[in-house]
């Protein structure tokens, strides 16, 4: 069976950047991505925007189109619409492709699963009409669909970006309910001078905030006690700001308080993970070149710890050079030489990232439910109270709690509740998240029909093209 030199899973900034380098080095590289077009979440539809005026999304988004076209011209084999659901440390990948099952083999694997938004379990977060800010971005970018008169609530750059994009497009926004506590500004202030070295990044953030303020949209700052109103559908948001309670009516509420690595792929492979206390999330353990605890499996981009799109491109290129070296295509010295500037860039990004992580770190009040009846596991409808009962019955780690209550056992396989459950158990046990651990995950990583499993074929790398 003809194996690929390298299989890359995910065609976002990291995966595309890595594929370009590997193809250039002459490696047989295949890229599996669930979407119809490359780009990942951040550059979704950047090359074929349905928007009448895509420039309103900003220059960073437009830059994605260039990366996508370089990737498409790179010679890397791109399997669009390939949804990987089993990754073996033997190099075997099983995936869904056009309603059928496919298998391929690779000597090296590079996982670029990207980020997902941190769940925000405020009361009412399961009501129809409550979505994430990322969801607003997805709908805008891929389908040119917007929600009129929505409330945006939470904190962090992605939230401000989508509000600014809505305003540029003339979409009415009911309010921006900003939750960054005063204390975070004080905590982050000492980190500011070093972050200034990434002045461009900092300026971008500040100009977004200025743009929003200048628009005249209602802004509430340091908001607390957020609660979605409504019985069957979202009707608005209630919160407290400056000691006063407010209610803003809206049938769409977009929530956001940061992103975290999309863990399921790296977890299901059984790679080593650790708790990142600055970003308050689990992340896969990799070395400077992206090598995981299984040497022929590398991870790059936000999926290996949040670095942002530019950082992900650099990390993808670094991982690709290391894989080239592992494949015997370049020497160690060549690898070191070719990765020098990207590694320097990645380390220069760190002070800026530390500043952002500190300023917008998730608050306990938004990371963990406050009310016993708030659902933690949306799929199996387990509330915080249900989980507490399970804990008191002796289920002290995520897997025991899963066996007892079914939390994390539904179709999302813990993607939403995983971090919440680690966090709650850590509080209740008064121990670190690291000591508590995470769900044990297995393949398949998506729902499959027997019908689909029955249609099975192997994809091989063509020998000498």
């Amino acid at each position, binding site marked *: 069976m003809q194996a690929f030199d390298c299989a890359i899973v995910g065609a976002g900034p990291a995966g595309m950047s890595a594929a370009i380098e590997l193809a250039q080095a002459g490696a047989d590289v295949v890229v599996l991505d669930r979407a119809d077009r490359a780009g990942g979440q951040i550059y979704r539809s950047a090359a074929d925007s349905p928007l009448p005026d895509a420039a309103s999304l900003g220059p960073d988004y437009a830059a994605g189109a260039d990366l996508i076209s370089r990737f498409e011209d790179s010679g890397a084999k791109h399997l669009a619409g390939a949804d990987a659901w089993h990754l073996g440390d033997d190099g075997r990948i099983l995936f869904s492709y056009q309603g059928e099952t496919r298998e391929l083999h690779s000597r090296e694997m590079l996982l670029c699963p990207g980020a997902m938004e941190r769940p925000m379990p405020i009361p009412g977060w399961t009501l129809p009409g409550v979505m994430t800010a990322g969801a607003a971005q997805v709908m805008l970018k891929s389908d040119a669909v917007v929600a*009129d008169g929505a409330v945006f609530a939470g904190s962090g750059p992605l939230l401000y970006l989508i509000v600014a994009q809505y305003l540029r497009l003339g979409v009415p926004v009911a309010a921006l309910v900003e939750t960054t506590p005063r204390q975070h500004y004080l905590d982050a202030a000492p980190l500011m001078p070093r972050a200034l070295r990434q002045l461009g990044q900092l300026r971008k953030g500040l100009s977004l905030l200025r743009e929003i303020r200048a628009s005249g949209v209602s802004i509430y700052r340091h908001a607390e006690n957020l609660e979605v109103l409504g019985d069957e559908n979202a009707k608005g948001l209630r919160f407290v700001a400056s000691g006063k309670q407010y209610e803003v009516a809206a049938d769409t509420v977009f929530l956001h308080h940061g992103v975290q690595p999309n863990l399921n792929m790296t977890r299901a492979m059984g790679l080593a993970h650790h708790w990142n206390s600055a970003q308050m999330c689990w992340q896969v353990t990799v070395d400077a070149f992206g090598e995981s605890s299984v040497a022929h499996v590398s991870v790059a981009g936000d999926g290996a710890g949040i670095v942002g799109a530019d950082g992900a491109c650099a990390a993808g290129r670094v991982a690709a050079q290391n894989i080239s070296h592992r494949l015997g295509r370049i020497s160690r010295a060549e690898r070191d030489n070719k990765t020098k500037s990207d590694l320097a860039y990645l380390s220069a990004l760190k002070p800026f990232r530390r500043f952002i992580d500190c300023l917008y770190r998730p608050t306990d009040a938004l990371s963990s439910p406050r009310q016993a009846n708030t659902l933690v596991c949306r799929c199996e409808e387990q509330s915080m109270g249900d989980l507490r009962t399970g804990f008191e019955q002796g289920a002290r780690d995520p897997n025991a709690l899963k066996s007892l209550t079914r939390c994390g056992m539904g179709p999302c396989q813990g993607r939403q509740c995983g971090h919440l459950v680690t966090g709650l158990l850590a509080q209740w046990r008064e121990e670190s998240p690291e000591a508590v651990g995470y769900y044990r995950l297995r393949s398949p990583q998506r729902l499959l029909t027997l019908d689909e499993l029955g249609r099975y074929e192997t994809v091989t790398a063509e020998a000498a093209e």
Partner: protein
Amino acid sequence: MFRSLQDDDRDLVTLNVNGQMVTARKGQSVWSAMAVAGQVETRKAALSGEARSAYCAMGVCFECMVNIDGLPNQQACLRRVADGMKVLTQDISEDTEADDAGL
């Protein structure tokens, strides 16, 4: 209320969402076509029967699972519209039986 910013009528397809005829653009996600049509309820929660809707729109929350052309558990945010497609709010609970075809 959701709406589309596209103002021309190129590449349109028609699908049926819970009996309502919905026009959408070729390539559009089933979820956003439903949203623009005001059909935001994607599924009933399996235990309580409460209405649920898309939360992440990028395939990680699995809240937007609908029945498409008789096949249950289809993530509306990941599936693309097609002419003549039949979409139903998914209602699979302990009291109802799922269509054998998909399970």
